[in-house]
């Protein structure tokens, strides 16, 4: 077996950040090669270079032993490289077959029956179960991903790049994906599998290349390594030591949600009769695959989305349909799901920290700028934010931005904390910090609602776990009863428990 792809001494800079620093990477014919690393390690950047989405500052690419300058995805496709990104590039109202041949039709007339026949044949050849006439909009996430893979294979891809393919899948769909990949490997396909999940990498790959901070740490045979060894290479230190200590002092309910319904942005029902209770001193985790109503739940509880029916009680005060300001006054601390939509990037750290409680910084109808500055200095110190009060928030890293939002909320010692996807996109250090803060709130006696797609995070922090599926709470269990398999079944909608 020869080398199909070789990347030599790749360097890619973004402003002052070196995303890839002298990276060497090789891919053999017929292997599944995992690219492992934390968020921001440079995995996706490297593969975007290979697929022609980015141009490397330095370095050379060889495909099948031949020097291959790749300047655009078109070049990459011509050399047999296909990529499936996390955000699918599919046209929802079109059929599977139309999506597969899109941009690759040849000829002027489009013969619907003929392309469906051709795509159907291709699907069978690659052993993938797909109805070529199905409309993409109606497919599940796992099926859409299969269409993306088929799309690449249909264009004679010899190398398939998968960027975090399992992030959007439920455990059962992951198994199906791995079966497909194994079959394709036997057919001679080479796969680059980007991931930050150790167990998946151990299961599926032949070799692993670990990236950290833009450097290659090592490339090893999967059979000759262990999760512990890989984890140490990834982070260089023990990580995710943050877990819930047993048994907290659970108290009276602080937040009660009864029969809550809400619509999504398209006006379709997104939350259906949600009932939840959070007590003092506990973390209630909401598990679920993304897009099952988590965003709408957080927004409705934050007061930025109006419920269509149902009630939200905070300390027995009805807050359904209340404004964000009223929620804050009632003692609800809110962190937004999209942190960029929670801060005003062009305003300073100090101004953002004051924005939620402006009335407290006004003296005789004038802003007390000194008080705003002192407030910022105090919070920057208390929450270890790496910034000056006068820095514009948009210049901060994701982790520091999240700290600004946490500081704004936690400084008020809220009795309820809403934390939707609080560590998404953060590096290890910032993730650990945020998780520690959530546990601190629990110890202080706050009720915490943790919404996360990261099951490890849910399992590590929650006292109780509720699973959301298609806008419904399909099950609720105590942390001791929960395990990955059981949660996975509930997340796929296959099993309902104790609704």
């Amino acid at each position, binding site marked *: 077996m020869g080398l199909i792809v070789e990347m030599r001494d790749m360097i890619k800079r*973004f*402003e002052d950040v070196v995303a890839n620093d002298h990276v060497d990477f090789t891919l053999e014919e017929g292997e599944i090669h995992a690219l492992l690393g934390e968020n921001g390690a440079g995995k996706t950047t490297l593969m975007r270079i290979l697929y022609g989405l980015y141009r490397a*500052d330095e370095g050379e690419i060889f495909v099948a032993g031949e020097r291959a*300058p790749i300047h655009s995805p078109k070049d990459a496709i011509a050399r047999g490289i296909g990529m499936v990104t996390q955000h699918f590039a599919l046209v929802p109202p079109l059929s599977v077959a139309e999506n597969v041949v899109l941009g690759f039709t040849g000829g002027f007339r489009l013969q619907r029956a003929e392309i469906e026949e051709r795509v159907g044949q291709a699907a069978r050849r690659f052993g993938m179960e797909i109805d070529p006439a199905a409309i993409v909009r109606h497919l599940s996430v796992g099926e859409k991903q299969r269409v993306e893979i088929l799309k690449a294979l249909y264009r004679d891809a010899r190398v398939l790049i998968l960027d975090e393919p399992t992030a959007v899948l439920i455990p059962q769909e992951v198994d199906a994906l791995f079966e497909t990949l194994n079959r394709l490997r036997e057919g001679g396909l080479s796969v680059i599998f980007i991931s930050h999940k150790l167990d998946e990498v151990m299961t599926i790959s032949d070799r692993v290349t670990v990236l950290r901070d833009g450097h290659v740490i090592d490339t090893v045979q999967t059979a000759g390594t262990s999760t512990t060894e890989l984890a140490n290479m990834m982070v260089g230190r023990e990580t995710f030591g943050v877990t819930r200590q047993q048994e907290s002092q659970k108290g009276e309910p602080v937040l009660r949600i009864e029969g809550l319904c809400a619509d999504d942005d398209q006006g379709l029902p997104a939350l259906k009769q949600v009932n939840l209770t959070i007590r003092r001193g506990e973390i209630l985790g909401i598990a679920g695959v993304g897009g099952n109503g988590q965003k709408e739940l957080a927004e409705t509880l*934050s*007061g*930025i989305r109006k419920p269509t029916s149902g009630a939200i009680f905070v300390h027995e005060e009805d807050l359904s349909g209340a*404004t*964000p*300001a009223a*929620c*804050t006054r009632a003692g609800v601390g*809110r962190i*937004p799901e*999209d942190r960029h*939509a*929670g*801060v*005003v*990037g*062009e*305003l300073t750290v100090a*101004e*953002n920290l*004051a*924005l*939620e409680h*402006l*009335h407290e*910084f*006004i003296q005789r*109808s*004038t*802003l007390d*700028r000194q008080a705003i500055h002192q407030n910022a200095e105090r919070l920057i110190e208390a929450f270890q934010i790496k910034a000056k009060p006068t820095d514009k928030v*948009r*210049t901060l890293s994701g982790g520091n931005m999240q700290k600004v939002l946490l500081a704004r909320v936690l400084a008020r010692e809220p009795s309820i904390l809403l934390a939707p996807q609080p560590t998404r996109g953060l590096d290890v250090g910032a993730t650990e910090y945020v998780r520690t803060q959530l546990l601190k709130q629990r110890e202080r006696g706050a009720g915490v609602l943790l919404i996360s797609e990261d099951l490890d995070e849910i399992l590590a922090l929650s006292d109780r776990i509720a699973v959301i599926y298609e806008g419904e709470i399909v099950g609720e269990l105590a942390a001791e009863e929960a395990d990955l398999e059981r949660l996975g079944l509930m997340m796929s909608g296959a099993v309902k428990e104790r609704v």
Partner: protein
Amino acid sequence: MAKRERKFIVEKTQTPPVWARTAIPLLALIGTFILTSGLLLWSNANPFEAYYYFLFAPFSSRVSTLEVLVKGTPLILCGIAVTFAFASGYYNIGAEGQLYAGAIAAAWLGVALEGLPAVLHILIMLLGGFIFGMLWALGPALLKVKLAVDEVVTTLLLNSVMLYIVSALLNGPWRDPESGWPQSPEIATSAMLPKLVPRSRLHFGFILAILFVLVFWYLRSRTGFGLKMRAVGLSQPAARFAGVNIERTVLISALVSGGIAGIAGVVEVAGIQFHLIDALSPGYGYTGIIIATLGGLHPVGVAIAALFFGLIDTGAQTVSRALGVPVYLGEITQATMLLVTLGMLLLQNIRIRRA
């Protein structure tokens, strides 16, 4: 396919260096000069000479220096008016119509309340102009806040409606009974704004304009409303999340914007023309948009941009008299200036460095 190795890398940066930001007005001026000099040569004028008249000749005499301030007065007010709305993300393109609404109030109250003491008369007239401007801005603002109707369209269209209203008034009930010209009767002496400098056209309106700059500066950077306004303008989702009442903030700034534009109308009627005429404004409301943009939506920047435009307006008349070029060259210069500056603002976010 061997491509030549690139020696430079072009990339985007979010933080332009300080020198770039300060050099931009100067570079924009040079760029404007280069772009307009062709037109000047075509009109048989020496571009250097023309720009001397544009930029320096107005300062050669006391009267023409003061004239820069006179021309700058409605421009400052319109610039501040537009900025007030833009700052909270409400794109008020209707300052022109709101200006005329204020002017109608001034022409009406200036005549109707004859006999009042001057101070009271002027105060009532200013208040009336503010309210008329606000009322003219109310419809689009409500449509925006309640039904999310695009304010750019509604405010812009209302400008034409207002011009026809003015025209109807001037050709109907308000036609001057003595001369028969389409102009309203002259306002009472007590309604005329006092002159600041004898034997010049500089009037109290200029002080008012500066006052509005200061008040707006204070409001914008020193009050809670100002911070909310900027937060709404810069990121509505974040402002909403932090509990800012978006609808209220947008509504208030849209109305105040209309009110200030109305004041500009009052000032032109009561300080310069003493009548309502349909050529009261040569597009001050639209120029206000350019000025707000060039001034970076900052009160001081707006004042400087407005006075600079006042300078070019004054200079354009001198150029046309001295060199025989059309007076419209002033407007062309202003428009070119805007385009060049906007181009520069995009360029300042691009950095070129050696690979």
